[in-house]
């Protein structure tokens, strides 16, 4: 369990019971493919964590540990990575796990036809690979990459049966084959994915609460997009656990004895608002700083999240060991905001009280994707809008469907945007703030949404990503974080929220993967 995961599963769960069907209700969009290699988003990671396993993972303390891999070494120049694969593990279709299988997975991920985005990016530095023997895989890298093992811990690069991967993508999407404690049995579109226990499951390492197969017979993975319905279903006992729990539901649930709460913030970047520095008015650092002081985040977060979200002052998630926080930069100070804006030339006001410079209103466009933000977050944005108005800043929130939202980003039609990014390790900083990330992919996509283009920062990130020295890595990433925070490129809000509510009948909930998706190997349903 990564650090930061808190579960109020208090006291002794009692003795385990074998059997039963767990009903999980997911509020995320139903994946179009159950194989997280294809595309690669969090909903896929959530469900795939039940039937797929990764080469590495994180232990309860948040330390990276080998999982399907036994060990890994890197050459001195950092360009050759050798991974040794654990013995005695078979996929649920009977295929044995070996180096060739892992190689087949990596090739699958790198094949354009697979259309992997997250996994593809994570393995982007691999130049070539070779299965030296059954248990040794040798990877040649284009440039050194010290976050490769962290990448290996993400479900998007989970290892699947090579035999199964040879099937058509349609078949593989419907029922990927892995080594996990459960296996996919059937998928009724828009309703549920049914998974059954993998009776032959072998735990890759010792250390879990028990060995052998999972306690639960099966898992029904339902898709219930409406938050209120999902919570009502949990209350009614129709489902046993729900994700994407709403803050108000959490607040009421923690007061009851029948519903328990699991808080598992996601790794990678924090949830933040990006300030687009590539165009007016945020190309002026003073205006960025002024905006950040003009909005009152803390009061809003407290009231909207009922204490379930802790304010963040870092570009990285609190579960990232290398996260650097700088609270002093982000205090609510409208007076200071006013001074800064006056200094930046936004001193006049128009009829509605908004600031004006050269006849142009200080107006910020804020596209918000309806599918990416929860209602509480949308309300937070509205409150930001309201407090910004007091300082004479107009914020225009555009609620958009996801396709249109990307359209706004690709055409640079935004001043503010919030786009969470999940990745294990501080390497996410390079994705989000390196100037290379301002160059759009063929799809138009780019991750550096604040559009920082700072050669010094680029250099810091480059060295931090390739150094073998852990201390230097930490120092460089801290400097990089300082730089983006002090440049007022982003307004951190809180960790990426990942709250689960579950029935008290469900025991031993809390184990998660490296990306904080829960796993139910040790979980059982009390009678």
């Amino acid at each position, binding site marked *: 369990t990564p650090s930061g995961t808190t579960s109020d599963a208090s006291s002794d769960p009692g003795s385990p019971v074998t059997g039963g069907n767990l009903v999980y209700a997911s509020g995320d*969009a139903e994946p179009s493919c159950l194989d997280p290699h294809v595309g690669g988003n969090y909903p896929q990671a959530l469900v795939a964590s039940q039937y797929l396993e990764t080469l590495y993972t994180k232990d309860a303390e948040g330390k990276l540990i080998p999982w399907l891999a036994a060990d890994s070494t890197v050459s001195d120049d950092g360009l050759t990575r050798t991974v040794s694969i654990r013995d005695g593990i078979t996929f649920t279709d009977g295929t044995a796990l070996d180096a060739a299988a892992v190689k087949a997975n990596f090739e699958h991920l790198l094949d*354009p036809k697979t259309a992997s985005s997250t996994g593809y990016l994570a393995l982007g530095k691999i130049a070539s690979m070779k299965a030296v023997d059954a248990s040794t895989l040798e990877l040649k890298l284009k440039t050194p990459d010290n976050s490769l093992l962290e990448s290996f811990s993400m479900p998007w690069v989970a290892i699947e049966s090579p035999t199964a991967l040879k099937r058509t993508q349609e078949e593989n999407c419907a029922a990927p084959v892995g080594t996990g404690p459960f296996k996919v049995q059937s998928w009724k579109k828009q309703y549920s994915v049914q998974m059954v226990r993998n009776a032959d499951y072998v735990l890759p390492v010792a250390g879990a609460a028990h060995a052998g197969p999972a306690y639960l017979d099966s898992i029904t993975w339902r898709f219930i997009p*409406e938050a209120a*319905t999902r919570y*009502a279903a949990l209350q*009614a006992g129709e*489902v046993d656990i729900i994700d994407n729990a709403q803050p108000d539901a959490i607040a009421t649930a923690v007061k009851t004895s029948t519903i328990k709460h699991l808080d598992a913030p996601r790794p990678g970047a924090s949830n933040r608002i990006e300030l687009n520095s590539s165009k007016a008015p945020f190309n002026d650092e003073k205006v960025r700083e002024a905006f950040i002081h003009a909005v009152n985040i803390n009061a809003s977060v407290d009231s909207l999240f009922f204490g379930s979200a802790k304010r963040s002052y870092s570009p990285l998630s609190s579960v990232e060991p290398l996260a650097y926080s700088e609270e002093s930069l982000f205090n609510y100070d409208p007076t200071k905001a006013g001074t800064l804006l006056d200094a930046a030339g936004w001193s006049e006001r128009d009829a509605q009280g908004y600031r004006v410079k050269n006849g142009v209103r200080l107006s910020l466009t804020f596209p918000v994707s309806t599918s990416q933000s929860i209602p509480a977050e949308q309300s937070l944005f509205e409150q930001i809008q309201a407090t910004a108005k007091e300082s004479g800043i107009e914020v225009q929130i555009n609620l958009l469907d996801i*396709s249109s939202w990307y359209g706004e980003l690709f055409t640079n039609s935004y001043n503010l945007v919030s786009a969470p990014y999940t990745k294990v390790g501080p390497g996410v900083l390079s994705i989000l703030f390196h100037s290379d990330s301002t160059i759009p*992919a063929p799809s138009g996509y780019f991750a550096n949404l604040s559009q920082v283009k700072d050669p010094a920062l680029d250099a810091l990130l480059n060295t931090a990503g390739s150094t073998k020295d852990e201390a230097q890595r930490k120092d460089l990433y801290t400097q990089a974080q300082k730089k983006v925070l002090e440049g007022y490129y982003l307004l951190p809000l809180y960790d990426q929220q990942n709250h689960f509510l579950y029935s008290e009948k469900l025991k031993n909930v809390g184990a998660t993967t490296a990306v904080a998706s829960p796993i139910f190997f040790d979980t059982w349903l009390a009678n």
Partner: protein
Amino acid sequence: MSDFAKIQSSPSGVAGTSHGTRSAARWLLSKIMGGIFVLWAVFTAIFFGLRMIPGDPAQAIMGGPGSQASAEALAAAREQYGLDQPLYVQYFAQLWRLVQGDLGTSYSLKSPVVEVLAELLPPTLILAGLALLVAWAMALVLAVLSTRSGAVGVALGSGLEIISAAVPHFWLASVLIMLFSTMLGWLPPVSTNTPAGLVLPIITLALPLAGFMGQVMRDSMAEAQRSAFALSARARGESETGVLLRHSLRHGALGGIALSGWALGSLLSGAVVVESIFARPGLGRSLLSAVTARDIPLVTGVALFSAAAYVLIMAFSDLAERLVDPRIGRS
């Protein structure tokens, strides 16, 4: 029939088809030809309409704009789905495939649209069908009760109808869930495989429809109650109940039948909301996600399906009208 019902009711007049057709075969033929035309037109409209939506279809195939598909991957997808061809070639190719019963492969689900529809159609049909039945029953009961029970009954009945026809689906759904699941614990808030899971979705869908149909039916029934033939039935010694059951009810039903085409559209639109809220698999929900994901083949498939359903329903309601009302079809 209320004016509102009139605008929504059977378009047989619009199509300009002559009702003077004496043979059933000709009637059938005209229905089939009309149906084929509608399907073709819907296909064409959707084909060109969707292509006007900004965004690259290849991008949609590769998992939407958020995915960082490589240029090669995009090109491969374009080729695989024939998107590299000129638009008219694509159009005729797709039309030809459509004639052969092939609706293409869904961009987002990566499986044949025909299969997706086959999987999602039954739950929606069950939901919509039952909702229609319940709506009919509720409308009839409301109409009969309020017609039978004097001024207060009429006021109460029409008040109920007007209010239930004015309730937004999603609001009703939320309130029903709060009431019957959270507070009373009688019914599951999400659809389940048990019949109990169908109750709330059906009520949500049926109630506004019932309100609407009730208004129309009661109008027709009230008109029948006031008519000369009702008076002559009374003069024959018929009781009020007899007049209602033997005469007015049919006229009320006729008003309801005329609404069935509209009801279908309303049910499908309502299904989008209801299926989302109650987490039911179905066509409505996939329509919403398909449009959001710019999944052109799936949107086309759903549109074609609902157009076909519309054509069928119209034919059936035409038939039903002819059965109930022999005036249609003659002269």
